């Protein structure tokens, strides 16, 4: 594979050859039976088990499509994302981008992959180097990817800054991250993710650190960029109330597994898995009546990923569990309604 990405022109030809995905045949991204386990060591060397952060996840994403992965902290959603980004090596299974498996890519191949995939971090201030100006931050990916001409780089930087509405551009070019508000910092992070014209953006809780009034603004921005540039998006969040913005499909993750997947409206209307139901009913809308009732919350906490419970991983907390079944056998994917999958024995 010749992946010397010097000019955009070359990227374009590369794309034309490598992607039949444009006509919807091959998905942009395929995740097949992905496992990411981290080894635990005792005293630094003795093997002491694995943290099964991602444990058998499969899905497909078409070009220009958007999905959301919803789950609580520690459910493995960040590990899943980092494996997709190529930052963790999968223990088992494959991530396939435009028909190429990440494990087959050499160094140059990975560089090409990283130019195709943008990453929007959760904490914008932590994600931006404090001693670099906005201009330097946005130029860096272009330099790394061999755009030699200074004026060409600057043109692209200006173009992206206009797209994320850091306006007027001249006011922001030479500012440092600490001189920007939280919302503006997150715009810089989004601009950086966009600058190489990626085909996929992974956004990890992009608004959870921002104030309520700014959140909607940033979500709208991401949404409009995703649609106007036809970028595929994986939106990772713990907040079900914001998934409607992007995603057509939403995946619910619990203890390393995708336990339910459905169209967003369908899931919000009729969640099937008892965990998804609990998640949905725990979210409040502003309503004065809330203060007079207790919320129904399943007992206990998510299980340890070192020794997850046998059978369904939610069964110790589930009010509808069936002894002898849920605590023994791992539920497969059931499809009670076309396109709506859930790993729960209730739907067998």
């Amino acid at each position, binding site marked *: 594979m010749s992946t010397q990405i010097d000019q955009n022109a070359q990227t374009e030809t590369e794309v034309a050859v490598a992607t039949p995905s444009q006509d919807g045949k091959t998905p942009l991204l395929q995740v097949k039976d992905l496992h990411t386990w981290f080894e635990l060591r005792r005293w630094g060397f003795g093997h002491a088990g694995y943290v099964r952060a991602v444990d058998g996840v499969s899905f497909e994403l078409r070009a220009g499509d958007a999905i959301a992965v919803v789950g609580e902290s520690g459910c493995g959603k960040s590990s899943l994302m980092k494996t997709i980004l190529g930052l963790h090596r999968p223990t088992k299974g494959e991530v396939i981008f435009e028909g190429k498996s990440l494990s087959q890519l050499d160094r140059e191949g990975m560089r090409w992959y990283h130019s195709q995939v943008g990453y929007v971090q959760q904490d914008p201030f932590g994600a931006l180097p404090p001693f670099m100006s906005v201009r330097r931050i946005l130029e860096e990916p272009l330099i790394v990817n061999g755009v030699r001409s200074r004026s060409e780089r600057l043109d692209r930087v200006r173009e992206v800054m206009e797209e994320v509405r850091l306006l007027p551009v001249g006011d922001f070019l030479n500012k440092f991250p600490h001189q920007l508000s939280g919302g503006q910092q997150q715009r810089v992070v989004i601009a950086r993710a966009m600058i190489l014209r990626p085909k996929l953006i992974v956004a990890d809780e992009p608004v959870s650190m921002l*104030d309520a009034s700014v959140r*909607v603004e940033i979500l709208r921005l991401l949404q409009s960029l995703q649609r106007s540039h036809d970028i595929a998006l994986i939106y990772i969040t713990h*907040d079900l*109330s914001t998934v409607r913005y992007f995603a057509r499909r939403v995946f619910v993750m619990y203890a390393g597994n995708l336990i339910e997947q459905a169209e967003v409206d369908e899931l919000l209307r009729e969640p099937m898995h008892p965990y998804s139901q609990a998640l949905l009913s725990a979210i409040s809308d502003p309503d*004065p009546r809330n203060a007079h009732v207790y919320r*129904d919350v399943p007992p206990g906490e998510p299980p340890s990923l070192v020794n997850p419970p046998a059978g369904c991983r939610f069964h110790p907390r589930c009010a509808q569990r069936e002894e002898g079944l849920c605590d023994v056998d791992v539920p497969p994917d059931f499809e009670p309604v076309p396109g709506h999958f859930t790993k729960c024995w209730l739907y067998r």
Partner: protein
Amino acid sequence: MSDELRVTELSPNGAESNTLLQVENLKLYFRTTRGVVQAVDGVSFELARNEAMVILGESGCGKTSLARALLRLLPRNVEHFGGSVLLDGQELVGMSEEEFRQDIRWLRISFVPQAAMNALNPVLRVGDQVAEPLMEHVGMGKSQALEQAAAAFRNVGVPVDFLERYAFELSGGMRQRVAIAMAMVTNPALILLDEPTSALDVLTQANIMNVLKRIKKEHDTSYILITHDIATSSELADRVAVMYAGQIVEVNDAEHFFRIPFHPYAQGLMASVPRIRQKQEPTFIPGQPPSLLNPPTGCRFAERCPARFEKCSQEPPVYEVGPRQLVKCWLYENETKPVVLHETLA
């Protein structure tokens, strides 16, 4: 399913005699190298016994400074600290630091700081930490204090054998409960909570809110809950105060506030909440809050307000639009019904 809580109706008259905390024109200014920051600028409100007041605001609006002012946990660069804070009729502002420490802090008013779960001492057992306020402030012996700590653990839903554990052995939600146990163990009249659930997961959040509701019901505690999360705050609020750029711009009861608030800023905030059970599109408030170094002379929200008119260049007074309903906005000079600026709220 969920059992109903008893709804305590406060009659307007009964509320008067029931006042626990009365804050009048509270000011807290900080000295910085770039000038004086007016973090809390003339804040007034009152709180009844067994009432939960939510103070809503965005980051940088001065809400944490307000908590620090009420608790007198002040840094060294205070330029000006004034006004009046009456707790059960007793003035707290002029009180000496030593008196405040001995009589008020932790005994009458306790505090759950922001990210409290990370504020626990890593080298002390959590049980000892919860018992500490009793030994320090009440003068209890250690064994008795530990017994009380165990009772507090049961109250917030932490298994009693966790008394022996260290903070790193507990999950975030459990640590947050320990912090709440520490605040309630002395049975104070008022607990200040600074963003008690903002770093937690949805289910844990709902759980902590349940715990706070139960404590309020069983122990007649009052809360001041400082947060930016409108949806979650409605889980606890009896009343709501909205803070913007160092000032309180609206005080309202939850019943009215979470339907249609008065102040244009409060309406903007309300319209910006993504809702899961309704399909309306949330909107955002353009612009940014002003700097507290040199706040604008007129209404501080005017620059971002969709309803501004000539008068807004002067500072608006506080209008009383209903019983215990106050709003600092020129729109309410001759008006006592909310002027709806966002169709999504109507």
